[in-house]
């Protein structure tokens, strides 16, 4: 039976502790959650992502107050009402648009940090998988949000992406019409994507963020050398006052203060973009209202989808879809395709080092080729880059099998 002191003042520390175990909670969640010392600024990307999600949520709440999910009014409710009538409406819109774009840059940095340091294996598989689920749900969130201003790019991206669900020659037209609720994107489509964007997807994302944090708890975050740290022993050292000797620091306040420093730099850049260069996140084509009878001359997705779009593009319809599907799921399999026992930075894993840098460069090439029109030499480069992407993943088990055990540096 729990003990409740009848003399404790309501809401005093003791009173709260007896009812909510606030001290234990604080220890478990922050002051005795241990982070290795041997990390760098790339380890701050997670909290930057959490903060950016917070910005998206708050700016989204303000946009929601004037947005009208109606095919006839949506465009003006964004481009006229929010932008020129609502006090500081432009601020929320630019914050929302820029954050939606920048969040993917940080996601990619976060992912490639994980790949580089091998932070997806030996007990960290669930961290990787829950992170990949977040990537997919963020993509769905970004796509559904892109529909809402109901501009030309919204409409035609909606048309092209929903058409993918006909699954090529299988010709599942019924499935496509079911997703749209109409023969073409229309009112039903706008309404359901509005629902997905403002309720269902954010709910799933928030649940996945909790899961993603949870997956870190037992294996802990990786470190710059992939060293296996005895967190209990090192935590004892820290608590005994041997702060210099201990290999770990508590999440709060030590790690968090480093995080906040990196975050501050990030927010300086972010707000610079919001105030002075928001246009990079605003496609000019989407400032034409949706017109079902006129395709824009060149349809391309936002920059963060370009690499997978480029994998779809150079092939005929069915193989293109297969390649596209491959690109969407293959990152999930990374912990299982990497057959090497080494948890170490890529620089110390010989053939894998090349694999890592080729993958990074290839994805940048795919991104650039996805943006330019599909003509002449661009088609060739795009096709080669798409094949390189596929071959990289096919050869990954062999590349990692060839790897020798990495000798630990001190």
């Amino acid at each position, binding site marked *: 039976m729990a003990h409740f002191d009848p003399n404790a003042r309501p809401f005093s520390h003791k009173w709260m502790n007896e009812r909510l175990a606030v001290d234990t909670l604080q220890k478990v969640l922050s002051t005795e959650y241990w982070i290795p010392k041997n990390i760098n600024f790339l380890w701050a990307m997670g909290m930057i992502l959490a903060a950016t999600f917070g910005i998206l949520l708050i700016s989204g709440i303000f946009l929601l107050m004037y947005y009208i999910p109606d095919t006839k009014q949506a465009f003006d409710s964004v481009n006229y009402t929010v932008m020129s009538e609502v006090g500081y409406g432009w601020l929320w819109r630019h914050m929302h648009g820029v954050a939606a774009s920048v969040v993917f840059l940080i996601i990619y940095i976060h992912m490639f940090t994980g790949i580089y340091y091998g932070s997806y294996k030996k007990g960290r598989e669930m961290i990787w998988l829950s992170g990949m689920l977040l990537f997919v749900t963020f993509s769905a969130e970004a796509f559904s949000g892109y529909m809402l201003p109901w501009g030309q790019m919204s409409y035609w991206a909606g048309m092209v992406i929903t058409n993918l669900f006909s699954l090529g020659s299988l010709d599942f037209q019924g499935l496509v019409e*079911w997703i749209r609720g109409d023969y073409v994107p229309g009112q039903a489509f706008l309404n359901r994507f509005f629902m997905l964007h403002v309720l269902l997807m954010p709910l799933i994302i928030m649940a996945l963020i909790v899961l993603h944090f949870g997956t870190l708890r037992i294996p802990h975050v990786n470190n710059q050398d992939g060293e296996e740290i005895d967190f209990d022993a090192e935590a004892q050292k820290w608590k005994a006052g041997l702060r210099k000797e201990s290999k770990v620091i508590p999440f709060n306040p030590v790690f968090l203060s480093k995080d906040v420093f990196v975050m501050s730099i990030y927010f300086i850049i972010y707000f610079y973009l919001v105030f002075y260069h928001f246009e990079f996140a605003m496609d000019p084509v989407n400032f034409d209202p949706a017109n*079902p009878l006129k395709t824009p001359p060149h349809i391309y997705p936002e920059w963060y989808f370009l690499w997978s779009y480029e994998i779809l593009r150079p092939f005929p319809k069915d193989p293109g879809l297969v390649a596209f599907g491959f690109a969407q799921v293959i990152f999930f399999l990374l912990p299982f395709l990497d057959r090497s026992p080494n948890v170490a930075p890529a620089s110390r894993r010989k053939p894998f080092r090349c694999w890592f840098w080729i993958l990074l460069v290839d994805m940048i090439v795919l991104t650039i080729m996805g943006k330019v029109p599909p003509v002449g030499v661009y088609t060739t480069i795009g096709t080669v880059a798409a094949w390189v992407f596929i071959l990289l993943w096919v050869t990954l088990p062999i590349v990692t099998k060839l790897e020798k055990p990495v000798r630990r540096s001190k």
Partner: protein
Amino acid sequence: MSDRRDFFGKALGAFAGLGALGALYAAKRTWDPLPSVKAAGFTTVDLSKAEPNVLYTEMWRGKPIFILKVAKDDKAYSDKRLINVGGDKFFIAIGLCTHLGCIPAYFPDKHKFICACHGGQFDAAGEVLKSPPPSPLVIPPFKVDGKKVVLGEAGPEYKKLQEAGVVA
């Protein structure tokens, strides 16, 4: 005792499962196109004033419909996909590229359609000249009525095309 619990557990699970299936079906039906959307009638187009080699675009069930009176000197003039309306040969198709649904543009001087999205090309009868589109432009159900065409209704001419395997 544990048999009793097992039974209750299974009975509860079965009922809850039935309920979940029902809810899933209701959710599926909620996302179906509405009857009013499905009943989005038939479109009648008068072709008597059409000029040769000029593309006309009509709207049917929210989709653009290409109508092209094919000129006699066009290479596609003898294509079996063309529709005879009052002695003239017409190309009528849904104006969405069969690759991913963009609207191809018509170039009268080249007598072909070019899709800007992924570079697909079609001739004046909707046949593929250049991939990625996997199949010709789709001919919608139609009925010839003198110099007019009713879209959405499968007339004898449409059924003939079906038998010939030109349309699905």
